[in-house]
């Protein structure tokens, strides 16, 4: 939506075009220098929003031909080095969307902590667990669970129940999984019936 508005403005359709946005936005955008009128301006945030939303993807505004006035560039603003931005962005991501759960395996002396969000589905998750703890699960089927595996991946959900990994759709799993435990096959045999 915003991109096409920008394009049409540049082609000077503004005069006849019906557009969204407050009147006077066009002028504000072209006019880089502030004037006395602007001092109580809250329309500035509109201008900012326009620009910021186009550019949160961290790409620079494509510049149109024949646009002589200085553009409201937002590349490189605020002036923070990308190293620092990336470090904090990683953290924000982690805080907002990381789903960290502890993983233990029966008989192993250490725990692992993993972020479920980095896996796209059960297949990847199980493969990662296999690599981490050096075991293999064999096949998984709806009916029989992890038949024939020495180790079986299980998880504790929000209600405190222990479930087989793979029983519920992935998204539901991510939001309900509290911790993972790789059980010895013998202990887990009864779990196929829970589902």
């Amino acid at each position, binding site marked *: 939506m915003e991109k096409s508005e920008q394009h049409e403005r540049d082609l000077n359709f503004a005069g006849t075009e019906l557009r969204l946005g407050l009147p006077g936005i066009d002028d504000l955008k072209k006019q*880089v*220098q*502030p*004037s006395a009128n*602007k*001092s*109580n301006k809250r329309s*500035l*945030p509109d201008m*900012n*929003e326009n*620009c*910021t939303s186009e550019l*949160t993807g961290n790409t*620079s*505004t*494509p*510049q149109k*031909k*024949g646009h*002589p*006035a*200085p*553009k*409201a*560039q*937002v*590349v*490189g*603003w*605020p*002036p*923070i*080095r*990308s*190293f*620092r*931005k990336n*470090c*904090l962005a990683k*953290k*924000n991501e982690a*805080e907002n969307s990381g789903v960290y759960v*502890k993983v*233990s395996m029966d008989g192993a*002396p*250490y*725990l*692992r*902590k*993993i972020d479920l969000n980095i896996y796209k589905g059960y297949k990847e998750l199980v493969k990662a667990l296999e690599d981490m703890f050096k075991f293999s699960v064999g096949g998984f089927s709806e009916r029989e669970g992890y038949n024939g595996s020495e180790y079986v991946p299980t998880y504790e959900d929000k209600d405190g129940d222990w479930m087989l990994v793979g029983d519920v759709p992935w998204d539901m799993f991510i939001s309900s999984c509290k911790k993972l435990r790789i059980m010895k096959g013998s202990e887990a045999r009864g779990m196929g019936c829970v589902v």
Partner: protein
Amino acid sequence: MSEDEEKPSVDLADRNVRIGGAPGSGGEFQSPFPDQVLENVLENVLIFLTSRQDRNSVSLVCKSWYRAESMTRRELFIGNCYAVSPRRAIERFRRIRSLVLKGKPRFADFNLMPPDWGAHFAPWVTATAAAYPWLEKIYLKRMSITDIDLALLAQSFPNFKELVLVCCDGFGTSGLAVLASKCRHLRVLDLIEDEVADDEVDWISCFPENETRLESLIFDCVDCAINFELLEKLVARSPFLKKLRLNRLVSIGQLYHLMIRAPQLTHLGTGSFSHTDIVAQTDQEPDIASAFSACKSLVCLSGFREIIADYIPAIYPVCANLTSLNFSYANITAEQLKSVICHCHKLQTFWVLDSVHDEGLEAVAATCKDLRELRVFPVDAREDSEGPVSEVGLLAISEGCRKLQSILYFCQRMTNNAVIAMSRNCPDLVVFRLCIMGRHRPDHVTGEPMDEGFGAIVKNCKKLTRLAISGLLSDRAFWYIGHFGKLIRTLSVAFAGNSDMGLKYVLEGCPKLQKLEIRDSPFGDSALRSGLHHYYNMRFLWMSSCRLSRQGCQEIAWRLPRLVVEIMRGHTRDREEDEMDDSVEILYMYRSLDGPRDDAPTFVSIL
């Protein structure tokens, strides 16, 4: 080369007799001899002169002094790597032991300059490899360095001791590996905010097996996995190690093991200060507090890249001695900060995130009476973010930290009154950088431009040499700067001013101006012309997204032949558009003794 040259020995008694005027068989040799003597004496004296400004003055006295100075200069400082060619530098200075080179302008850090612009280390390392076999130290800032360059460095300088790379790129861990293995006398390897490629080479393992002479190992920016056991062994066999800054992949458990091996550390970067994904079930929590207690000499603490707040109390034992604390990667609250900062009475340098809010800054102001440098970075570096710090924090700092010399403050709201108060409370300010992140934001209480605040800073802070301005600013702000900013060397301007007059005031009023970087401000060709009298005295001028035309820049290039005038497009434009459009997107110009460079990429036009 000339290291082993024998100096003619001087018999001072003889000299006295001859100066007495007695003509003798050596009469015809009288005239050059005292000069030679003088030059020798001078050289012996000049060895003690280290300031490069003084040395430059010395070299202007006469040819003899020029020669003596060039023979005795040990550190070569080149503030712009394109201002002089390597050949010219090594021809003049024959006995350099230490080289400082700076490359790209600062705005390149913010992606304003297309990549691969230049500032290559290669020609310098090639030239110095041949000319200065006794080179011991190299300091590079914003240069492009390749692994090949590092390999050449490692093999060319047998006595190499110190390498400091700041904001550099182009190399990877394979280059570091060569350095580690070949530089047997390495004392300092400091990698600060560089972009280092992960070549999956375990460079830590490449240090020689025997005891090292390492005093400083800083690699917090190297985001590559390392073999921890080998790092631990390296630290164990580095008895002189005083500065160690770990990357974020080092866990707090690993930190513990390193700290107990190196209690002599003075500077520590803690790495993640968190767990990695491995947490031993049977292991107890590492007694990290005791490790800190054992480090009695610790004065500088940084890192905390993924800090777990529970571990903050571990650093209490060292707080009382800390002079420098960098929390700028630690997303902590005001309460969490307070628990630490209340012990930090000796703190002089403090970097922090705005997550601590104004309240956190008030706590800093209450305790850190000796504070000299403060930097407040935003957790959320976007224009329309919340902005947890404001004029309240700034005011508190100004009232509590009267000895403040340097401040960098990111915020979303500010008032002129707070800035004026700081100008009065902190007369020792040398560096004042205020970044109001929302562009063109006025004083949020009065709605006025921020002119008066910055005006007060330049007027009252008589030692000010560096200034960065932001917020809603008219030409008046620039009038103040030109009128009062007589010592200003570095000025950063963004989204400010009304007209050409703004830039004119500054160029005409600030005689010490060296580095001027301007973006997105309405200054045009007429303003550019007003600096003609001064550009040869500057290190550089950067202007991007202003109102310059190619014609205007061309005129400068004609009038000042020793100035290199570079015009660039941003990386979003095509080549074809160049011919159509006379407007200049990026102007970067600088004086040079050797004319335009020959390594300019295609997107750069040199006028």
